[in-house]
């Protein structure tokens, strides 16, 4: 099985590579179109700013390559947000696999909201093969200031002031807002479930 991690200008992917390594899988880091198209599994990670990342992907035509993939694809964090149709972060049109928008957390008037959300939060309403043997309300590690709004592709929900999409799924595309590579045993189980698809 060939597992590819899409290489672009958004964040370090060392932790993800190591998480795959702990599951006995060698993740190939590449931006080569052919390598990506011929992979059995594609992971689209990312930490960073949406418009810079989208520009980088577009310049290399990687946005089209990703959108046309037929094998299982897993977006993580910013990777998930870029798979949505639009992000409020610097008014950025995104790849558009998922029919939802990415918005910034808003602090309610009556109390101070810490942004970004940093830490462990629980995921509920789990209904995807990604969550096989992952208990309802498991805790995952999140670091983000923007979130994907709930939509018909939502397969896990988290609450931080409001309910939002902790995970999305549509056809061969899977995506999680949290970092499964940093979310202890349950996170590793989610990566394993994706690899098993």
């Amino acid at each position, binding site marked *: 099985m060939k597992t590819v991690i899409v290489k672009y200008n958004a*964040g*370090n992917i*060392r*932790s993800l590579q*190591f*998480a795959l*390594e*702990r599951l006995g899988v060698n993740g190939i880091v590449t931006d080569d179109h052919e390598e990506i198209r011929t992979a059995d599994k594609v992971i689209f990670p990312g*930490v*960073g*700013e949406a418009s810079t990342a989208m520009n980088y992907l577009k310049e290399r035509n990687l946005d089209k390559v990703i959108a046309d993939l037929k094998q299982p694809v897993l977006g993580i964090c910013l990777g998930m947000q870029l798979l949505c149709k639009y992000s409020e972060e610097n008014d950025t049109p995104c790849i558009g696999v998922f029919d939802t928008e990415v918005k910034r957390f808003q*602090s309610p008037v009556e109390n*101070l*909201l*810490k*942004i*970004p*959300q*940093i*830490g*462990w*939060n*629980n995921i509920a309403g789990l209904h995807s093969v990604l969550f096989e043997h992952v208990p309802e309300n498991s*805790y995952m*590690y*999140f*670091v*983000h*200031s923007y979130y994907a709004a709930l939509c018909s592709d939502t397969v896990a929900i988290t*609450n*931080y002031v409001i309910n939002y999409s902790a995970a999305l799924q549509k056809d061969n595309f899977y995506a999680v807002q949290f*970092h499964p*590579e*940093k*979310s*202890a*045993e349950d*996170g*590793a189980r989610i990566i394993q479930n994706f690899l098993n698809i």
Partner: protein
Amino acid sequence: MLTKRIIPCLDIKDGRTVKGINFENIRDAGDPVELGALYAAQGADELVFLDITATNERRKTLAELVIDIARHINIPFTVGGGISSVADVSVLLQSGADKISVNTSAFKNPELIDQLSREFGSQCIVLAIDTRYEDGDWYVYLNGGRVKTTVKAFDWAKEAVDRGAGEILLTSMNNDGTKKGFALDITAQLAQNLNVPVIASGGAGTMEHFQEVFDTAQADAALAASIFHYKEIEIPALKTFLYNNGVNIRF
């Protein structure tokens, strides 16, 4: 709901943990990776590795250690100690650190925080502040608490957040090592007025101390070292205690 975090801190010198750590169930208590993995397995929410090596070789040793930690540990970790440039941070993040912490270098060159947050994002920039209460206020100390400044901790924290720090790690020198509890007043002032998470450090001696720093001061996370290393408090018992007392905790 977002949970409160429990963070053990490991001091590192020449790639090894220091302080007399006594665990019979691990092979090498001086091995930061093995000790970190044990804490992760016990339910620690994050780890902090603080490098106190003073030699010229430290950068290389630290980067190698970070790779080793990232390879084996499946929870987030922060690396701090002597970090003073964008290049230092770049190496550590590429090696697999999730966050880095800066202290004296950022105070002496505040523009460093702007540079780091622009380059890597606020979410991985932790500002560490050592503070001491004297003459009616909390003042910033540098160089591991050896050098006094005339700047108030709250003012410096606020400036750092405005410049892009994503978290504050606040250590009270008055409380550190006393086991009489965290500094609730200054922790509360920061936690309740800054829109980034505040990690309280210094003074933990009992489980109740953790509860009060979360409930009363509204800290987002609490850090401790020796009480965990000497097993005066074990993380599973601490988390059970907090959970039973209504603190939102990850199990």
